[in-house]
């Protein structure tokens, strides 16, 4: 029973990644012909070229902002959903927020264009109301990319946080209330520590795909909002597969580091909060 799925994963996932790692050690000559001599030329380029380094840094910063904005929206939103609606209504409302997550990421991304584009809804409203004289240039900037990423990845953040809030025992909150804690204090000192694993999980599954995102910066970022994924695609489109492979391997290593750091962070925060 195990063999067919295991073989599928080995052949379609593990083997291709290993091949990518092998390609990253090779190089291409001036005619873009593959030279199969192992070396670290591509990694030297990726790690020393200011373009690649600054783009990796920029992508990490944009993915970080996306994660923070998503968390800042999702925590109070999940709390509002869990506290103020009947269980049936709650379920419908949460499904309604996750449902768009299943719609093609391409459609959702370009739909942002209709809102923030030069002739989009926002500019139409601003111009019609006389608040601005000429349309605002929001599209093709870094904030546009972060906005698009928040739009795409909010459901990823919402689900684990909501699940964590659902698991809180009402008795714990009642105890805090009876002991005289104000709503804000209850939220900060009781709810947040209890749902922290959910927040950490949400941050991980938001940050990682946002870091490697290709489509959102491609459609909303223009030249200003280039992310690391665009560099990988460009390398492959210009037939420099070894360079593209090295960029991919560096991205995978960066993700592994983030996963490791987050898991340590979760341990650390848990041990601090247990004090």
């Amino acid at each position, binding site marked *: *029973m*195990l063999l067919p*799925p*295991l073989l*599928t*994963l080995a052949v*379609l*996932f593990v*083997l*291709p*990644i290993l*091949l*990518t790692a092998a*390609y990253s050690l090779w190089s291409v000559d001036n005619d873009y012909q593959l030279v199969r001599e192992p070396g670290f030329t591509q990694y030297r380029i990726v790690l020393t070229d200011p373009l690649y380094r600054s783009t990796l840094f920029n992508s990490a910063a944009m993915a970080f902002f996306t994660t923070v904005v998503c968390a800042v*929206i999702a925590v*109070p*939103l999940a709390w*509002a*959903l869990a506290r*103020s*609606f009947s269980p049936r209504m709650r379920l419908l*409302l949460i*499904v*309604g*927020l996750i*449902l*768009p997550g*299943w*719609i*093609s*990421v*391409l*459609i*959702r991304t*370009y*739909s*942002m*264009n*209709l*809102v923030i584009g030069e002739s989009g*809804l926002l500019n*139409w409203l601003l111009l019609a109301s006389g608040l601005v004289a000429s349309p605002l240039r929001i599209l093709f900037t870094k904030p546009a990319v972060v906005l698009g990423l928040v*739009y795409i990845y*909010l459901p990823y953040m919402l689900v684990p946080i909501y699940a964590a809030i659902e698991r809180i025992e009402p008795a714990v909150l009642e105890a805090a209330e009876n002991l005289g804690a104000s709503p804000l204090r209850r939220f900060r000192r009781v709810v947040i520590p209890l749902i922290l694993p959910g927040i950490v999980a949400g941050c991980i*599954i938001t940050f*990682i*795909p946002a870091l*490697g*995102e*290709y*489509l959102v910066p491609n459609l909303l970022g223009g030249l200003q909002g280039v992310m690391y*994924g665009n560099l*990988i*695609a460009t390398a*492959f489109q210009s037939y420099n597969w070894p360079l593209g*492979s090295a960029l*991919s391997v560096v*991205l*995978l290593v960066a*993700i592994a580091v983030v996963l490791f750091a987050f898991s340590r962070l979760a341990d650390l925060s848990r041990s601090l909060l247990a004090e």
Partner: protein
Amino acid sequence: MRRSEAGSVTMVAFVYALVYLPIALVVLTSFNEATITTLPIRAYSLKWYEALLSNTRTLAALRVSIELGLLASAAATVLGLCAALAVTRHQFRGRRAFLALMTLPMVAPGIVLGVSLLIFIRTLGLKTGFAALLMGHTLLALPYCTFIIVASLARFDRNLEDAARGLGAGEWTVLRRVILPGISSGLLGAMLFGFTISIGEFVVSFFLTSAGITTLPIRIYSIVKVGITPEINAVSTLILAATLLLTIAALRLTWSQNK
């Protein structure tokens, strides 16, 4: 209504408005008579949907997407069933490692999956196209299908299996006559989820399409890159409606077994 509740309702309503506004604009402007994709809409018309019917390249891409979705989701559901039976009905060494490996394609960036599959296909000496897309989409749908079926199997009453075995049924009979009928809604739900993943997928397909074989999202992308047209909004509206209906059906199926 208490004050805090009014605040909650306002917040939820506000987020709902933001989440659905861009999608609503796609739908709304697909009915715009004019060629512009913005408000205000002066006259409504179905002419962009009619134009779609005669756009052979878009229709060809739609056909590829549907065939791909059906095959990839069927393959992922069968493979996912095997994986789910293995992890829920057997204890074996490396079970946790297997589950971790299964989650990795969900976590790895789509672009890395796309380029590594491209390298894999070319190393084998094959060409990109339908078979390559099928491999990519099956891999992407497999983890989701597996975990849906695992949940389904976990809820299934093991006593029914034991009873069948006690009555002398062999393993194959138990699977075919007891387990599969018992989790049929979960299987169908897994397949529908797999189909929606395949039909909406972009970045992996981006590296695996060939000149002749294009999926619908790639076709939409190539048009949107030049400029958003009402016709493309009409295509997107149809995909949107199909995805929402399929997802709701899949959710109902996977939940109905709960009760």
